């Protein structure tokens, strides 16, 4: 049982859901209703869990090679590929059905689209063939914000796309920092993450450039009118910190994992500020 839970990558799901609730609050211009939030989170968890499980089936050969991932359920044979694939597909189908019945069709469709994009575009197409793998593939992780918005309004508006863009541009620097730390692992598995493809120094430059875009996109939420002064203050402070940290990392590449962890805090704090701003 524990192995099946591990297959869903619960910690990644946690972060995805962190972005869903604030999106719902902004869309509703207040608390969207406890049942709707719970129903959306359950559906999002099922879909993301399905995507993560199928991803691990497709990447089982890579996970066996990499030190960071070789203790996962499939490389350690705690679950076989067939059962894992079945489990992932069932989660995805149940997630779609749950969102369709309890929330609405747009939320269900977006959630399933994210699953399919993650599996087919990122995992099977980009991951092993492109140094831009995490840039384009990161779109899948940004969809939960759209799901949250669509769950409340049944459609998508410019602020929803800004939320999507914040997560989209947050993803590359976040995972490039991780891949700097584990570049030997990725090289051994022949996964062309940016540090493997162009070297660490060049990757650090990309982290700075993407951090600047990220901060710009985070400011873009303010003119949409869904947030006010509290979010603005937090976005400015966090923006200064994230650009400063990316510049600092250029001279402290051995601290990449600290940047990776701090980056999680950045995203969570930014979305928490949105939620607070939207509620009060």
């Amino acid at each position, binding site marked *: 049982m524990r192995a099946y839970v591990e297959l869903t990558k619960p910690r990644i799901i946690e972060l995805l859901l962190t972005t869903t609730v604030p999106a719902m609050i902004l869309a509703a211009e207040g608390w969207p209703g406890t049942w709707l939030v719970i129903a959306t989170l359950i559906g999002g968890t099922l879909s993301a869990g399905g995507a993560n499980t199928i991803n691990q089936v497709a990447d089982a050969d890579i996970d066996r090679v990499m030190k960071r991932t070789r203790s996962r359920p499939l490389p350690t044979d705690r679950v076989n590929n067939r059962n894992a694939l079945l489990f992932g597909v069932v989660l995805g189908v149940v997630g779609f059905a749950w969102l369709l019945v309890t929330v609405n069709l747009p939320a269900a469709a977006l959630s399933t689209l994210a699953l399919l994009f993650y599996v087919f575009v990122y995992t099977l197409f980009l991951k092993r063939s492109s140094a831009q793998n995490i840039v384009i593939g990161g779109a899948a992780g940004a969809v939960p914000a759209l799901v949250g918005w669509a769950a409340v309004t049944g459609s998508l508006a410019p602020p929803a796309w800004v939320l999507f863009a914040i997560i989209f*541009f947050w993803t590359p620097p976040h995972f490039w920092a991780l891949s700097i730390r584990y570049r030997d692992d990725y090289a051994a598995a022949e996964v062309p993450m940016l540090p493997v493809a162009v070297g660490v120094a060049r990757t650090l430059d990309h982290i700075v450039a993407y951090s600047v875009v990220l901060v710009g996109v985070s400011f873009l939420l303010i003119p949409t009118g869904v947030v006010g002064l509290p979010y603005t203050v937090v976005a400015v402070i966090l923006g200064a910190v994230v650009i400063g940290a990316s510049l600092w990392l250029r001279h402290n590449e051995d601290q990449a994992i600290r940047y990776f962890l701090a980056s999680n805090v950045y995203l969570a704090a930014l979305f928490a500020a949105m939620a607070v701003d939207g509620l009060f």
Partner: protein
Amino acid sequence: MDGLRDVSMVLAAILVAGGCVAVVWLEFGSAAERRLVSRVRDSIEVLLPPALALVLVWIVWFDRI
């Protein structure tokens, strides 16, 4: 409040545009990266995110008018 929105819109546009120029420059401006963008597909993959970011700025800019 409108002043705050105007200032943040301009700041956002400057940061996004500046960052996108830097991304494109990094990808196409060095010999190391040029090897990666030797195919049409690679070029599309590199240019797509900055292009989408600029489209989003454009959408928000005109949405608020």
